[in-house]
Each structure stands twice: as structure tokens, then as C-alpha cells.
């Protein structure tokens, strides 16, 4: 399991396009993907889940990937959160 705190750097926060890109990408991996913010944990493969977190730019979230391809998943998803993809 990889678990690390990441600061959202995407200009508009984790909204609209980045959020749906995040979900689409997360679905490609076998690993379980979770996001935790302020003690609330959501499924990273769910747009509704991510939405309930309301991540603005500068927010800190914990990205958790757990499974056989967790390393690849973590690195790819982190780039979306950091707005570098």
C-alpha cells in the first residue's frame, strides 16, 4: 500500500475535468484507490466520491493506492492532483 499526502496544485482544484480524468484513470488500475481529506475517506474511482471532498487548489489530500499495480497507479494519479498531466 502506498499512502502519501499531496497538495492540490491544479488551478481550479479537483473539479470538473481533472476529477473525471482522475476517475477514468483510476479505473484503469486494479488497485483500490482512495482519497482522504479532513478525515473523510472516499472511493477514488467514483466521481461522486471525489465531489463530496470539494478539493480546492492548495487543499491537502491523502492518496492511497493498494493492489498489485499500486506503484504505477500512484504515480499516474499523483500527476493529475498536482496538475502536471
Amino acid at each position: 500500500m502506498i499512502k502519501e499526502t499531496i497538495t492540490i496544485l491544479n488551478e481550479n482544484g479537483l473539479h470538473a475535468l481533472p476529477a473525471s480524468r482522475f476517475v477514468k484513470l483510476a479505473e484503469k488500475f486494479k488497485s483500490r484507490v482512495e482519497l482522504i481529506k479532513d478525515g473523510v475517506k472516499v472511493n477514488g474511482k467514483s466521481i461522486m466520491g471525489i465531489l463530496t471532498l470539494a478539493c480546492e487548489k492548495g487543499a491537502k489530500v491523502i492518496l492511497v493506492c493498494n493492489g498489485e499495480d499500486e506503484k504505477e497507479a500512484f504515480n499516474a494519479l499523483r500527476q493529475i492532483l498536482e496538475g502536471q498531466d
Partner: protein
Amino acid sequence: MPKEKILHGVPASKGVAVGKAFIYEIKKTEIFQTPILSVYLKDEVSRFEKAVEKTREELKKIKEQINREIGEDFGQFLNAQIMMLEDETIIESVKQRIFNEKKNVEYIYNEVISEYAKKLGESKNAYFKERVVDIYDVGERVLKNLLGVSHTSVLEAPPGSIIVARDIPPSEATLINPKNVVGIAMELGGRTSHTAITARAFEIPAILGIGEFINKVQNGDDIIVDGERGIVIIHPGSGRISFYEEQKKKTQQIAKALLPACELSPETRDGKRIDISANIEFFAEVDHAVKYGAVGIGLFRTEFLYLARRGSPSEEEQFKVYNALAKKVRPHPVIIRTYDLGGDKIFSDYHEANPFLGWRAIRVCLQETDFFKTQIRAILRASVNKNIKIMFPMISTYEEIKRVKLIFNEVKQELKSKKIEFDDSIQLGIMVETPSAALMGPLLAPEVDFFSIGSNDLTQYTLAVDRGNERISQLFDHFHPAVLKLIKETITAGHNGNIWVGLCGELAGDPLAIPLLVGLGIDELSMSPSSIPKAKLVLRTLTIAHCQEIAQETLNFRTALEVKKFLNRVVRKKFPGIEDLMK
């Protein structure tokens, strides 16, 4: 047998239809709550899974249909719905709550959907807020599938149907099958609604904005849609039906008689060629244009690209449509008109007191330059096909055309620096549809490659008449001497500046107007595809010298009525039997 009743509405698409009512209704599903025994909870879950699967298939089908008929990528907005349907959080929470609360899936699912819709509605992000409609849409579909209520779709309309509806949502309007649907009668909607646009594209007669009436109609009832008079007749008597059947037969005979004319070359008896082209708004309409013998597309309206989806289409989406269009019409030309809607359609939901005199068309584009450049880039990229011309609407000042050209050249430079190919000699023209542009013709002509007179708006702005207003619509007349004078000035100014001048309003397709316009020296006439054969027949009976005499004389009259009486006499003399064709 209920009594015959005549209903009035907005004639959104012309023609007459007699058919059987097919009621399209969006029924609100009734949700009930019932306890479920523990042993049956698994069955609830599997019912849920099946309903989700069925809904996914439905959404995919609609998406494919939209992509096929409107343009590739335009069904993409349904992706958001599919994503919500498949959302793991929603699905997991439904399953969990079924086991925890031991209640039926319809009840649980409805609760969950409402909860998330509320969350979306509270979001500060506009994109998420707008998705509330989608989540309810998806929710309804799933619930219908759970309850086994068949989701009526316009797709199911049998041959000879007249669709009767309160409203048809955009995603549904695009599914109307012109082979089965002969007419449309709707309680809501106006001339610019999706349904209206689809109806016109497929030449299906339609009356919209009728007001409440569908509770008076049942599936299979006889019904008549008269797009010429703007009426719908429910429970028509047998006399009425035979009258309309007769009229329909006559229209079809005329259409058949005109068919050979499609192939004719568009020229006067003495050999002067006038390009007769088509006004279209859908890619799918190119087939009509070709069938009726159009020499190219004189006006491709791009508004539908903006209305068919939510928000503004990307450069790539637009490029695909323009490129496919150019390829299909080649070697004939295509004139693409840039954004010609009010700014409210894209940028905000504000309301203007006076939208036709407001923030619209080029005025929006010159303020929202990134938005404007996206469209120009897409058009320029498609111009590699070498048959595209670009046209800007609603020009009313000299500065506007200067600024348009500045931006246009900036985009060209940008493409060059990126080594993206385009047609550097692409023709650039403007719509002449404001009196100011018509009067400024001599100053505007040196700035552009062509003028296209938009006679509908030119009439509206010159006579200060909103034709949609029933109380004054009789004042709207494109044969008004003031309008004709402006048309003459525009053509003269264009020719003095060595550019060609076309006309793309309804006037172009009016057989009465053709001798006059040819006499004034018009180079191109662009009209709705079905008007083309008639226009060719009229054109081929004329000689230039005679048309010039006609034009000269026409300009002496004082009223639109005098003009029309005179032209009627002239055309009838030249072309006996024309009145049969002018119905």
C-alpha cells in the same frame, strides 16, 4: 367522438401532415416504499444490477445516434450520464442500504440519487451544478427500467406518426426518425428549440408552443399539422381530412414535377449563370442540398454546434464537422458563418430587454476573443480542402470588420508559426443584414471578398418589425421598397468594389423575387434546399435584359403590395402555371 378543434401555435417547420397521434410523454415515476424479507434482499440487488446494465445500453445507443446524425463527438455529453450511472460510490451505497434498511431498491435508489443531486446542486462549481439535470435524467431512466415502465421514446413512433408532446428534450429530439414521423405538435417550444431545428432539417411539418392540449388527445387519434397556417387540428372531421389529403397529394405532385428541374443548370435563357446554393444547419442536410441540385452551400449555420451540446464546442469538435462538410461538398464551395447567437447561449443566463439589438453574433465574438479564435482556427484548418469561405454576421460598423480581420490574421499567423496547413487565399465575407452595413457598402467592399445579404434580418432591422410578434408581423415584408433600395445599394457597392454579392434570406427562394434580384445583378442565391428546383425553373425562363427592365420598374413603386402585384403579373406572364408551383 370528440369534436374537431383547431389549435394555434408557432409554425416552426413548413408543410402539411395528416397522421395518427403518437404521444411522447415524460412520466414522472411513482416511487413506493416497501419492506423486503432478508432472503429476498439479494434479488433486489440483482434487479438493480440488471436495471443499471439496461440503462447503460440505452445511453450508449442514444450517444451513438447523436454522434452519427449531428456530428462526431456531440453525444459526448452523455458520457457524464454514463459515469454517474456507473459511479461506484452510488452503486455501493445503494447495495449497502438495501441490506441495512431492508427496503425495495426503487425506494433506496431514489433516495441516494436525490442525495447526490442535492450535493451537486450545492457545489460552487458551475460544471457540477449543471450536472444535476443529468443525475436526475439517469435516475429516471434507471427507475423506469426497475419498474418495467417502458421508457417512451420517439424512436418507437410507428410509420405515419405525428408526435404529440408537452416538450421533447434535446437528446430525444435528435432521435426523431423522419421515415416514420410525418409531423410534430408540441405544447412548449419555439422556432429555435432543438425540436424545431430537427424538424426543419428533416422537412417534418411542426407546430410548437401550442399550450396545453395533449390531455385531449389519445394515441392513434387522427391529427393534422398545418405548418403553412400555423395550426393543429385534433379530431378532424372526414371532410377536413380529405381536404388535407388532397392538399398533400398536390404538394407531392408538384414536388415530383419539380424533380427533373433539380438537374438543370442554374442559368438565364441567355446564358448568364447565377450560383444557386443551399442554406443548411446540419451536416446531414448536405444530402438534401445535393438531391435538390444545389451548387454548393451558400450558408452553413454553425449555431447548432453550440446548441447541440452544453457549452461551447472545442476546436477539434468543430474542425471535424467543418472538415467532413468541406470534403462532402467538394468541388463546390461551402460558406461557413461564424457564431450568430445571443451571448446568453454560451456565457451567462442573463436576459436582455432587447436581444435582437443586443449582445449577439459578432459583438459577442469581438469581446470573447478566445472563443472567437477557437472557431476561426477550426474553420481555417478545414480550409485545406480549398473550398471553404468564411462569413461574419451582424456587422454594423467599419471598425468591426477591421477588428475581425485583425483577429483573423492573428490566427493565420499563429497557424503558420505552428506549421499547420490552411488555405491562405480563403475568401472572407460579411453578412449585410443591418441597414448601416448596407449603407456603408462602398466603404466595406474594399475590406472583404464578398457580401451576402441576409434579407430576413435586413428586413427586420430596416422596418423595425419583429416578425414573431403576431400583432405586427403583417408589417414584415421583404418586398418593402426601403428593403429593396438597400439591396440594390449593396449589390452596386459590391460590384463597384469588384466583389461578388449573394443573398441568403428567404427572399432568395421566393420565385417572385428572382427576376428582380437577377435584374439588380445578384451573383448568388442561397436558399433552403427544397426551394432550389423552383428557383431554377423561374431563372431559366428569364433574360438579363428583361430582368433589368423589371428591376428598374420595381424600384418606382411606393408599397410592398404594388411591388408584389407587379412581380406577380410579370412572372405569371413569363411562366404560365407558376402559381401552381408557388403554393
